[in-house]
């Protein structure tokens, strides 16, 4: 018997944190009854992914510009960084990824996460649009 199987009882249903969200047990770690500011900031992302899958590029790009612009205009750079960490590039197309990179360009120096996102966008563009990669990458940064 392997070591994991011998101790499989150590992964109980309550091991994860999500269970705490619905648990009323007093032993649960403190957690807000309403979503955190970060969760609220990222709550629109599934709508973005739906618009991308549906091919509604204008709507998707508008969403990206509007949401990031709200944070950048208010100089909420940390929240903007958190949003960059929350965006799943794997669910975006090239147009929407370019929108993320371009709207955040103005605050590049203040966004810790942006360089990583730009690198990943580059990799994805090369993989998704090899013929247009050079032209697209010229405007990334």
């Amino acid at each position, binding site marked *: 018997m392997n070591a994991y199987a011998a101790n499989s009882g150590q992964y109980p249903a309550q091991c994860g944190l999500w269970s705490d969200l619905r648990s009323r047990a007093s032993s649960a*770690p403190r957690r807000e009854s309403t979503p*955190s500011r970060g969760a609220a900031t990222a709550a629109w992302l599934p709508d973005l992914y739906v618009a991308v899958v549906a091919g509604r590029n204008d709507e998707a790009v508008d969403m990206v510009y509007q949401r990031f612009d709200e944070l950048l205009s208010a100089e909420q750079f940390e929240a903007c960084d958190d949003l960059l960490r*929350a965006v799943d590039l*794997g669910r975006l197309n090239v147009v929407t990824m370019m929108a993320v990179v371009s709207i955040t360009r103005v605050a590049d120096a203040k966004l*810790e996460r942006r360089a990583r996102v730009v690198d990943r966008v580059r990799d994805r563009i090369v993989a998704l649009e090899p013929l247009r990669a050079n032209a697209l990458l010229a405007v990334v940064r």
Partner: protein
Amino acid sequence: MNRVVEQRRVYPRPPIVEALVEFRFAQAVPLSKMRGALAGNLPHGYEKSPSVRYRIDLEAAVTGRDVRTAGKRNVEAYFFRGRSGLRLIGCRASSLSAHVLAPYPGWENFQDVVDECVAAAAPVLGSEVLKSVAVRYVDRIVIPGAAPNLQEFLTIAPRTPEGAGSILTGFSWTSETKLPATGDTMRVELRSAPPNGPEAQVVVLDLLAAHAFAGAVRLADRQLWSDIVDRLHQVQRDVFEASITAETRRLFE
């Protein structure tokens, strides 16, 4: 029998409410040491003072007809929350974990949280030998309809015996299997959960893929465990796809 696994899919609305990677150490590591290791080294963006999960331990002594009980509150785990509240790094006695919460940020971003967790712990715990590593995804699937036929949505939905009624109001089912090629362990748990309203049924699909190390692999030996974590992630995905039907996939689009 050959198992048909769906090709990798990317859903705009995945049902993932939590995903975590957990490292277990072979030798006992005090919780205080784990907490100290993380508190001093986590990168900017994580809270410095962790949330605490307590465990209540009860003891009972029976003497004749008398029963005396005593209870003690002990710390079970600490969780360092990222600024957004959507990523967390946790520790409990002899284990370390990296978590992301919904909306799921994708495997790449999740791996960054795992890397942050390991990088923070490595100066103190890097030489600790690992007993196992596990990848776990908790999916909350909302199925519309007051009394939907779960067989149409889940390939692993439980069947009820004839005469027991067709409206399934509560269930819990767990399996644990071993993958012969790798020795990995896969635990699948499917259970009902409180619904949002009368017009929906909610099920939780809790998938855990784990690997027990045979040799002395240390936390700092990233090159020795990262491919295993990738494999466990893929196993979990395959099992997820094999557990749901086309009807359910439509719910995530």
